[in-house]
C-alpha cells in the first residue's frame, strides 16, 4: 500500500491556519520520500512540501499582532464549536438511551416477563383443567385461552422490536413455532379426555414437557437478554458526558485567557464578543451538568423504585405459578415422579411446591421492602396474606393426600371442597398483578421525568455553540479592525 501525496491537505496560501504554531512534525502529512509519480515533475523545481510552507506562513503570521489575533480567534471559535458539537453528540446519545429505557428496552423486558408468565400460567391452567376433569370451570378454560392469546400477542411485539438475525429474534421464532405445537398437544389431550381415554393424560404430559423443557427455558433466556439490554441502556443514559464537559472547561479557560491577554494589551475590560462566547459556554456547561444530573436522578429512581421492584415481582409471580402447577401435578401424577431428598425418595412435585412457596415468600419480603409507598406496599402485603393461607390449606390437602384420602385432597385443590387452595392462588396472582401495574406506573413516571430533563439539550447545545463561536470571532474581529 502506498500513500498518495498529501500535498492537497494544506494548500499553500490557506488563509485560515488550523494548526497551532508548533514546529513541523514528522508524519504522514509530510512523507519525506516516495512522492507519487505524478507529483515528481511538479515538486522537482521547489523541493518543499506544501505543509512546510504552511508552517512557515503561520510562523511569519505569528510574529505580528494581527496574525496572532487571527490565530487566537480561529482557535477560540474552533474550541467553542467543538464543545457544542461534542455536547450535542453526547447528549443525543444519552437522550436516546433514556428514551430507549422508557419506550423500548423496559417495555420489551416487561413483555418478555409477560411471555414467560403467560406461558407458565397457560400450562398451570391446562394441568388444573385436567385434574378437575368434568368439573373444569369455564373460567379455567377461558384463562388458558387468554394466556395463549397474550403470549402470542407479546411475541409479535417482541419480534417487531428485535433485530433481524439476533439471538432474541431466533428465540422468538423458536417460541412462535413451539406455541402451536404445545397448543395442539393440549387440545388433543382435551379431546381424548372427553372420550375417557387415558392417552389424554399422556398428551398432557407431552405438553407439559414441551413447556417445561423447551418453551420456558427459551422464554427465560429472552427475558434475561432483554434485561441485559435494559441495563446497557441505563448505563448509556447515565454515563456522565465527560468529553463535552472537559471540552467546555478548556473552551472557557481559553476564552478567559484571551480576555486577560486582551485586557493586558489594551487595558479594555470588556470585549462584547468574547463575553458573549464565555456566557454561552457557561450556560451550555451548566445545562449539561444540571440536566444530566436531574436525568440521572430520575433514571436512578426509575430503576430503584421501578425496575428492581418489577424484577422481584415478576420472580414472585413465576414462583407462585410454578407452585400452583406443582400442586396440580402432584395430584395428577400421584407420585410417579420422585426426587431424592437426602436419602429419601420424595414426590418431585410436593418438593417442588415447597421450594416454590418458600421462594415466593422470600420474593414477597423483598418486594415489600422495595416498595416505597403505601399504594405499592398494600398489594404485596395482601399477596403475603393470601400466600400464607394457601400454604396452610395446602398443608391440609397434602396431609389428606398422604393419608390416602385422594378425593378430599383433590377437591380442596381444584376448588370444589371448602376452603380450596385454588382461591388462594388466584388471590395471590391478582394481588401480584396489581403490584406489578403499580410499579410499572412508578417506573414510567420516574423514567419520563429523567428523559424529559434531557429534552432540547442536544439542539440547545448546538445552537448556543454556534452563537458562542460567532461571538468569539466577532470579538476578535473587533480588535483586529483596529489595525486597519
Amino acid at each position, binding site marked *: 500500500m502506498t500513500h498518495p501525496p498529501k500535498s492537497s491537505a494544506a494548500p499553500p496560501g490557506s488563509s485560515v491556519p488550523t494548526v497551532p504554531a508548533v514546529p513541523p512534525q514528522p508524519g504522514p502529512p509530510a512523507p519525506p520520500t516516495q512522492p507519487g509519480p505524478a507529483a515528481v515533475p511538479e515538486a522537482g523545481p521547489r523541493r518543499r512540501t506544501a505543509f512546510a510552507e504552511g508552517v512557515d506562513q503561520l510562523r511569519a503570521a505569528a510574529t505580528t499582532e494581527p496574525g496572532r489575533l487571527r490565530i487566537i480567534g480561529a482557535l477560540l471559535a474552533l474550541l467553542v464549536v467543538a464543545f457544542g458539537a461534542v455536547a450535542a453528540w453526547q447528549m443525543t446519545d444519552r437522550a436516546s438511551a433514556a428514551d430507549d429505557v422508557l419506550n423500548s428496552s423496559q417495555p420489551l423486558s416487561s413483555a418478555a416477563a409477560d411471555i414467560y408468565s403467560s406461558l407458565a400460567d397457560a400450562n398451570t391452567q391446562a394441568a388444573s383443567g385436567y385434574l378437575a376433569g368434568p368439573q373444569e370451570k369455564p373460567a379455567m378454560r377461558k384463562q388458558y385461552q387468554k394466556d395463549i392469546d397474550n403470549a402470542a400477542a407479546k411475541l409479535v411485539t417482541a419480534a417487531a422490536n428485535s433485530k433481524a438475525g439476533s439471538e432474541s429474534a431466533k428465540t422468538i421464532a423458536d417460541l412462535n413455532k413451539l406455541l402451536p405445537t404445545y397448543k395442539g398437544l393440549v387440545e388433543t389431550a382435551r379431546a381424548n379426555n372427553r*372420550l375417557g*381415554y*387415558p*392417552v389424554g*393424560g*399422556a398428551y398432557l404430559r*407431552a405438553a407439559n414437557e414441551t413447556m417445561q423443557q423447551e418453551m420456558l427455558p427459551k422464554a427465560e433466556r429472552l427475558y434475561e437478554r432483554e434485561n441485559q439490554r435494559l441495563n446497557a441502556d441505563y448505563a448509556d443514559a447515565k454515563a456522565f458526558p465527560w468529553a463535552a464537559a472537559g471540552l467546555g472547561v478548556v473552551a472557557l479557560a481559553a476564552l478567559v485567557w484571551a480576555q486577560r491577554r486582551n485586557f493586558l494589551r489594551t487595558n479594555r475590560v470588556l470585549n462584547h464578543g468574547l463575553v458573549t462566547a464565555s456566557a454561552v459556554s457557561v450556560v451550555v456547561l451548566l445545562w449539561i451538568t444540571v440536566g444530566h444530573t436531574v436525568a440521572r436522578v430520575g433514571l436512578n429512581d426509575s430503576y430503584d423504585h421501578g425496575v428492581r421492584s418489577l424484577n422481584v415481582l415478576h420472580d414472585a409471580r413465576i414462583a407462585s405459578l410454578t407452585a400452583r402447577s406443582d400442586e396440580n401435578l402432584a395430584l395428577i401424577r400421584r407420585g410417579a415422579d420422585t426426587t431424592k431428598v437426602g436419602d429419601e425418595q420424595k414426590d418431585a412435585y410436593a418438593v417442588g411446591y415447597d421450594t416454590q412457596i418458600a421462594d415466593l415468600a422470600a420474593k414477597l419480603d423483598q418486594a415489600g421492602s422495595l416498595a416505597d409507598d403505601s399504594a405499592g406496599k398494600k398489594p404485596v402485603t395482601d399477596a403475603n396474606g393470601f400466600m400464607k393461607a394457601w400454604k396452610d390449606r395446602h398443608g391440609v390437602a397434602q396431609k389428606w393426600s398422604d393419608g*390416602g384420602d*385422594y378425593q378430599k385432597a383433590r377437591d380442596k385443590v381444584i376448588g370444589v371442597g371448602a376452603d380450596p387452595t385454588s382461591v388462594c392462588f388466584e388471590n395471590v396472582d391478582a394481588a401480584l398483578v396489581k403490584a406489578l401495574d403499580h410499579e410499572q406506573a412508578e417506573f414510567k413516571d420516574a423514567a419520563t421525568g429523567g428523559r424529559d430533563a434531557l429534552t432540547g439539550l442536544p439542539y440547545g447545545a448546538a445552537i448556543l455553540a454556534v452563537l458562542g463561536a460567532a461571538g468569539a470571532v466577532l470579538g476578535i474581529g473587533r480588535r483586529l479592525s483596529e489595525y486597519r
Partner: protein
Amino acid sequence: MAVVCALALAFVLLLPRTGASGAGSTTSSSGGRLTHALQAAVEKKCTNGRYPQDQSLSPSGGSGSTPNVDAIKKRGRLVVGVDTNSYRWGYLDPNNADGELEGFDIDLAHRIAGDILGDPGKVTFKAIPTSRRIDAIKNNEVDMVVRTMTITCERLGDVAFSAPYFKTGQQVLALRNSTITGYDKSLAGKRVCSAESSTAYDNLKADKGHGIPASTDITTVVPNQLDCLVKLQLGEVDAVVTDGALAASQAAQDPTVALKGGLFTDEYYGVAMKKTSTDLVRQVNRTLEDYIKDGGWAESYRTWLHPTMDQGGKKSASATPPEAHYK
C-alpha cells in the same frame, strides 16, 4: 429357512410345557398355542431350572409369624404401586368426577387390601413409572406393585412375585394401514417405541439383528408405554412393542391403530413385593386363589378386559386365569 428351523426347534422345546399348562386352560385357542410356540425362542427357564412364574410361595406354608402383614394392619392402609396410564388396567377415567383409579389391577389391589384390612377401600395408590417399579419396592415406598408387571428370572433376583395372575405376551402395534405385519422382517427400517426397562425393550434389544432386522430403530424409549401411543399418533414412531394386554388397551383408544401379528412371547403378570416379605407373598397368593375360585377374577375380567381383548366373539388366551405352580 433358518426361521423355519428355529420355529421347529421352538415347537419341540416347548411341547412338554404347552402340554402341562394346556391341561389347565381348556379354552386356550389354537392361535394361543401358536404364539406359545413362537415365544419359546425368547423365554427360557431360570438358572434354577424352573420357569419364572412357577417360583412363588405356597399360601399354606410359612412359620406362622407375619411381621409384614402385621405392619400393614397396624398402619391401617395398604400402599400399592400402580399405573395410572393403562387403559382398563390402572387408569383415571377423565370423566369420572371423583377422580378414583379404575381397572383390572386396581380391582385386584382393592381385593388384597380387603383381605388384609377388612376394607377394600383402605388402599393408597402411588403411581410409579415402569422404570421405577423395582426401586419403589426396594426403597419401601410401596408394600407391593400391582402394575402389569411381568415375572422374569432377572427381576426375581430383586423382588419376590406372587403366583401369576394374568397370562399375556409381547405384541406389535402399528397404524392399521401400515406395512408392518408383526414381529418380523416387516420392521426393517422402522422406528419402534417401547417403555424404559420393560420386557419389550429387553426383547427388542436381544432380537435386533436376529428375530427382527438390524435396521430396526429401537432407540425411542419412553417412561410409560402409553407415551408410545402418543408418539405413534404424532408420527414420531412407526410401531409400538408392548404386552399384548396393554397393546389392546392402546388400540382401544384409537380406531386407526391395530395389533399386528400374534403374541410373540409368553409372559405372566405377578404382584411384586419385597424379597424378605415372605408372609405378605403367601397372603397375596391366598387372596389370588380365593379371587379366582369365587369368580371375582372372572368378573373383573369381564368388566375391564373382555371388551378390548376378546375380539370378534373369540376368547383371548388371556381370558382364563393362569394356574399357580408353587415352589
